[in-house]
């Protein structure tokens, strides 16, 4: 009897289509593209500000106020906010487990603490921005 183990091929380009679990992971990871786009936008905004001329800054603002950019911002914000943030908060207890005495702190408590911290940081940013 001879051994001839068969190795099943794994596609390097379409592996994530195999099941919903992998597709959800890719949806989370692909948000990194939006992070990159936002970094470029922030750099462009800073460059416009650093230029010192009101015309340049107003031109940057105007470039963001058309329909396509408004849709992009809305989709990107919702996608970030709803999908990536929720998904990462859900995973936080895995990376940062807590134990009080003999008992582990419930993952729900750790996730809730993240949401509370998120709300506080958001309020501080709003306060710094002069919203209230």
């Amino acid at each position, binding site marked *: 009897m001879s051994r001839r*183990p*068969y190795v099943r091929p794994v596609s*390097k380009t379409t592996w994530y289509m*195999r*099941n919903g*679990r992998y597709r959800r992971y890719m949806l989370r990871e692909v948000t990194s593209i939006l992070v990159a786009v936002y970094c470029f936008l922030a750099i462009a905004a800073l460059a416009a500000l650093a230029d010192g001329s009101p015309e340049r800054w107003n031109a940057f603002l105007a470039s963001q106020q058309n329909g396509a950019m408004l849709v992009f911002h809305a989709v990107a914000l919702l996608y970030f906010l709803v999908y990536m943030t929720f998904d990462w908060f859900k*995973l936080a207890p*895995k*990376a940062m487990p807590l*134990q009080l005495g003999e008992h582990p702190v419930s993952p729900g408590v750790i996730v809730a603490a993240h949401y509370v911290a998120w709300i506080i940081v958001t309020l501080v940013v709003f306060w710094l921005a002069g919203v209230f």
Partner: protein
Amino acid sequence: MSKRQLELEVMRYDPEQDEVPRFQTYSVPCENDWAILDALNYVKENIDTTLSYRWSCHMMVCGSCGMMVNGEPSLTCKTFIRDLPDKVRIEPLAHFPIERDLVVVLDDPVEKLYRSKLYIIRKDDPPPPDTEYKQSRAALHKFKQYTMCINCMCCYAACPQYGLDPEFIGPAVLALAHRYNLDSRDQGKSDRLDILADHEGVWNCSFVGACSEVCPKSVDPAAAIQQMKVEGALEWWKQKLPGGKS
């Protein structure tokens, strides 16, 4: 007890005759309380004695009956037909070479189990024979869940990263390494560092989390790996600080 007819679509591979695996369908009269393993045993005993698969305990302890059930890595002794449709596809655990039919070659993870020093390492002198290493319950609970691993390798079949890069140490071995690193009696963390902190170790994990979702023993290898990443990153930063150890 009522019977139910199950269409079992089983992947077959005979290394002496088949170039590639093929599927063979068996119609199995199942009892409602059967697990998939019972259906396979029925096939072996009554329909086709040439079917090869591994099993031993039939009670979720030995970890040898892991297979893909409708694409999901599962222990077939705890996957019940009452939870499945009338047609079920059984394949060998994904990402491992197929030895024959549903039997896979597990040489790779077994070699990694040995290489990763998954045992308690002490640096000090051994204690006198009449003493023991004491451990509090709180210290035990830090790692206890990871001791539940039965090496069924379902997590490797679920991990897309292992499928793409078999050099990756993989979920179960890393979870067990974390188990020993967290053990208050162990002093061998630095001995495991070269293996675990390498590219093949924790940093090869992209946190899909599938390993933890499929684990039949509710072990959480994804958590173990992320915790080792956090710890590794903190250690790296500590070395970069002024006065940090190099």
